[in-house]
């Protein structure tokens, strides 16, 4: 069964007045407890929240300090590492062309001039001409 409009109005508008209705009195007492406990709980959570960041800052500093120590420990090791020197690749020795004297060069030119004409450059002979003529007449 729902509360009547009068009962609800009494709850809303006369919160401090006592009522002859035990249910209404009981409900009013619970609502008062709810308010009191809510205020206390909110105060507690708010004060606790103001403490938590201090702890969080402490943890943050500890994390930074640990990271700094690890970094300091790792840095000398990094510098201590000597990489093996890279051997320069020796360039393959190029065969130097032999020095050609002017006399030798002149002798080669003369030899080329005096050489016989290659067979492929010889003028065509008459035998080929006659054979072709014979084929045409056939």
């Amino acid at each position, binding site marked *: 069964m729902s509360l009547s409009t009068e009962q609800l109005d009494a709850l809303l508008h006369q919160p401090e007045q006592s009522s002859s209705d*035990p249910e209404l009195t*009981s409900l009013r007492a619970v609502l008062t*407890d709810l308010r009191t*406990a*809510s*205020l206390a709980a*909110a105060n507690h*959570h708010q004060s606790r*929240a103001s403490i938590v960041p201090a702890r969080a800052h402490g943890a943050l500093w500890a994390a930074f300090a640990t990271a700094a120590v690890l970094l300091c420990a790792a840095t000398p090791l990094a510098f201590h590492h000597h990489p093996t020197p890279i051997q320069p690749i020796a360039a393959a020795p190029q065969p130097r062309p032999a020095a050609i004297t002017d006399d030798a060069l002149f002798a080669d030119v003369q030899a080329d001039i005096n050489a016989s004409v290659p067979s492929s450059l010889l003028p065509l002979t008459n035998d080929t001409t006659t054979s072709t003529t014979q084929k045409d007449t056939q």
Partner: protein
Amino acid sequence: MLQETLEPADLNLLPQSAVTASPFDDIAGLHALYEPRIFRFLLLSCRDRDLALTLTQDTFLNVWRARSTFRGDCSVATWITRIALNLLRSHTRSEAFRFWKRAANSSVDASDLTNHLSQSGRSAEQHLIAHQSLAKVWESVEQLTPRQRTVFLLRFVEELELTEIAATMNLPLPTIKTHLYRGLDRIRAAHAELTPRKDRP
């Protein structure tokens, strides 16, 4: 004889501070005044401490950025709460929120609330009953629709007037009343499950 210098009073001018006085001039004071309230509202709405802290910070950042748009048609508190509510809505709409809500380890559950229940003036038995009732009501608040929950929290935790809630949520007053009545009725039903039969009328 002419005066060598003109005073502001001669030109019928108000001092500069009087002309541009705004509630946002002292943003640090504003932040100190409203931050606990905004954080509380966001924490109870989203039930996630980290998210509530982030949204609270974003709220005041948006307040500072949008301070020139404040027209004074509502109180500063209402205006700031409206900004917080809009941020909360846009955040909870995203699918990512649902995933992170499941995965979050900073969520606020019923035990968080019941642990802060005062025992003053109660016997051990009464304290135990109040403990159970509060846990039950807190669970039933989670079952409300987002609008019902917002109206409920603004009314019963922040103790805003219904007109202020209407201005904050940008809804008509009858709509606010409807959401509040429905939400309250569901909470009453959940609470009634724990109430002994002999106490019922």
